[in-house]
């Protein structure tokens, strides 16, 4: 305990898993409070950190930046006009002169005006300047995923578009403790990171979050539930759905191993491979449409590494190949029933 306390005095502690954090200095927080806490810590520790975006000043539409403008002032926590391309590009510029730019895009569905800047400017900056310049201290935070009634433009999961771009990192947390650690790691990672926050969990997910400054390793997947018969891979809100489906499968005597990918790109292939070699079966789930989603990439990778260990084809349980619908959302989403059905088919193959 004495040793741990001393480590904390010297700044952030880095951990592989949230369970490694021994801290007893915790507080019950939901996801937006954990994000708020992470931002507070970074703004406090790093005088060159800036937080900006649409409506960020009054606390943000999801309360993630609550109180931060009052604490750190308008030259560090400020509103931008309604211009995503401007926000993204402005962030790249700030990062390239050494500021820690934390740019907020209010909904992931609106990130596309900034797509060119992110893909062509941010991702390739270090490469094309021969490492003379970089925008590594840029982090783009955006909201992500279905929320029950978001329809076409408040529910999208755009991670696959960015995972297809070398030079970027993409991260999606599943819970408040992960969110705080992964966000701090993302901000401090010396590469541009896109951090997607599952908006459905802002209020619903609660946990006893350590109040210290801690980071969780990027590009490390976490086995959140050990199992023998089948590997279930997901991220963000999907982890809850996988837990529900695995409870249903348990009644049939099927033991499921659940892995949270956490960093979508570059992903931790080793953890996935170790698991599938053990179980021989795999299901990947995400809300985004099926074709060319992360499920496609992970399936290709896993079958390449584990071909002779597979007992059944790798299954993807995902959203349909349609725009995110309005009232048909419950049909569209990969829910626990669809995953349970896939588990059954895989086990009985």
């Amino acid at each position, binding site marked *: 305990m004495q040793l741990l306390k001393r480590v904390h005095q010297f700044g952030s502690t880095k951990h592989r898993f949230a369970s490694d954090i021994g801290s007893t200095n915790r507080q019950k927080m939901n996801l937006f409070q954990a994000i708020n806490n992470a931002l507070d810590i970074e703004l406090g520790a790093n005088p060159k950190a800036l937080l900006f975006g649409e409506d960020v000043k009054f606390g943000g539409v999801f309360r993630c930046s609550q109180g931060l403008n009052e604490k750190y002032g308008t030259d560090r926590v400020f509103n931008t006009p309604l211009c995503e391309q401007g926000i993204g590009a402005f962030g790249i510029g700030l990062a390239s002169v050494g500021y820690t730019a934390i740019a907020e895009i209010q909904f992931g*569905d609106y990130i596309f*005006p900034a797509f060119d800047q992110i893909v062509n400017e941010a991702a390739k900056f270090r490469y094309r300047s021969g490492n003379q310049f970089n925008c590594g201290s840029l982090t783009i935070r955006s909201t992500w995923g279905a929320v029950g009634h*978001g*329809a076409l433009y408040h529910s999208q999961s755009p991670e696959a578009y960015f995972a297809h771009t070398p030079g970027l990192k993409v991260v999606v947390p599943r819970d408040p403790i992960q969110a705080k650690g992964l966000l701090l790691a993302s901000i401090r990672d010396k590469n541009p990171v896109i951090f997607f926050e599952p908006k459905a969990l802002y209020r619903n997910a609660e946990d006893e979050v350590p109040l210290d400054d801690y980071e969780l390793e990027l590009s490390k997947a976490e086995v959140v539930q050990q199992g023998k018969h089948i590997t279930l891979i997901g991220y963000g809100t999907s982890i809850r759905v996988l837990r529900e489906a695995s409870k249903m499968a348990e009644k049939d005597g099927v033991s499921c191993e659940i892995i949270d990918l956490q960093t979508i790109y570059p992903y931790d292939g080793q953890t996935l491979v170790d698991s599938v070699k053990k179980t021989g079966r795999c299901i990947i789930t995400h809300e985004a449409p*099926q074709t060319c989603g992360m499920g496609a990439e992970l399936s290709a990778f896993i079958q390449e590494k584990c071909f002779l260990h597979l007992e059944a084809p790798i299954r993807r349980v995902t959203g349909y*190949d349609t725009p995110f*619908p309005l009232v048909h959302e419950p*049909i569209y989403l990969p829910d626990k029933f*669809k995953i349970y059905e896939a588990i059954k088919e895989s086990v009985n193959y």
Partner: protein
Amino acid sequence: MIFRISRSCFSSISVKLPSFKVHHLELQQLPKTATTTSSELLAYYKSMQLQRRMEIACDNLYKQRLIRGFLHLADGQESIYEGLHAGLTYDDCVITAYRDHCIALLRGDTPHQIIAEMMAKQTGSTKGKGGSMHYYKKATNFYGGHGIVGAQIPLGTGLAFAQKYLKKPNVTLIMFGDGAANQGQLYEAANMAQLWHLPAIYFIENNLFGMGTSIDRASANTKFYTRGDVIPGIQIDGNNVFQVRETLKFAKKHCLEKGPIFIEAMTYRYHGHSMSDPGVTYRTREEVQQQRKTRDCINYVKNIILENKVADEHQLEEIDNSTQNEIDIAVEQAKVDPVPPSTELTTDVYVDNENHFIRGILYKDSVLPKSQ
């Protein structure tokens, strides 16, 4: 509001218009008065009341969770929509953002269709697949209804190009808000419009706030009517239905002769940005109440009606009741309508859906092309 009314013996009423602010235009080109008649006044009153009551009904339905998702109400801004309806024709194209229920109403949808659409019912304007932000009507050249801020602006410029190319005596009204005025795509589109002299009216509904950010905190230049740079611009009182109407008539003439124009209509929304926004964290309740008392667009028309003895309080109350009744009937009908069937999830993705493979979650749920 100061207005002078005079009644001629042909029972037409003359209304003095508020002053204009102009950019690259001469003030004398613009009218100082507008004429109206008793029946027209009552028609405006009734139509704006219908819009207002429809929006309030949607507010109630949202609170009852019968409308879900994101709902952006336009109560307080009815005169803009009434004015555009009066100043333009159904052959002129209209395109706007997500505060579009009233335009849908004025472009031919019934209150029942509009409310059903928000409740995601099959009988809605867009088959229940679009929701509050996505109303369209091909027959009356209403091109929607867009969720992404500013995306409709270059799209509308394309419509204007088509009109010019096809030598139509028509214009495109491209509507957006003060927040969207900072989107780069506006300037890309306006540049093209001016370069090629397109009949595009860039119409800014300035309700002083972009979500929760006031115009001074978002825009370096808050004179939105000048933001077109070399493109002429006019600033008007959007809460005055006559000024909106006359300005659009003038704008149409201008566009067909010369090219694009910027119009900034000053207005105010009583609700917050959407139903998730209480609307009082960035402005005071007193300010909202003050706007309701002194600048309400329906009260403006009501006062003209009463001053000119076109109708009395009792008759106006009857109109209020009949519009309320109309909305209530529409709501009750929409409540019992069915939602679109689950097969609609995979229709309209492509024009020839039958020839496409739409991947289901399980392969066996996929929509297979007809040929297979």
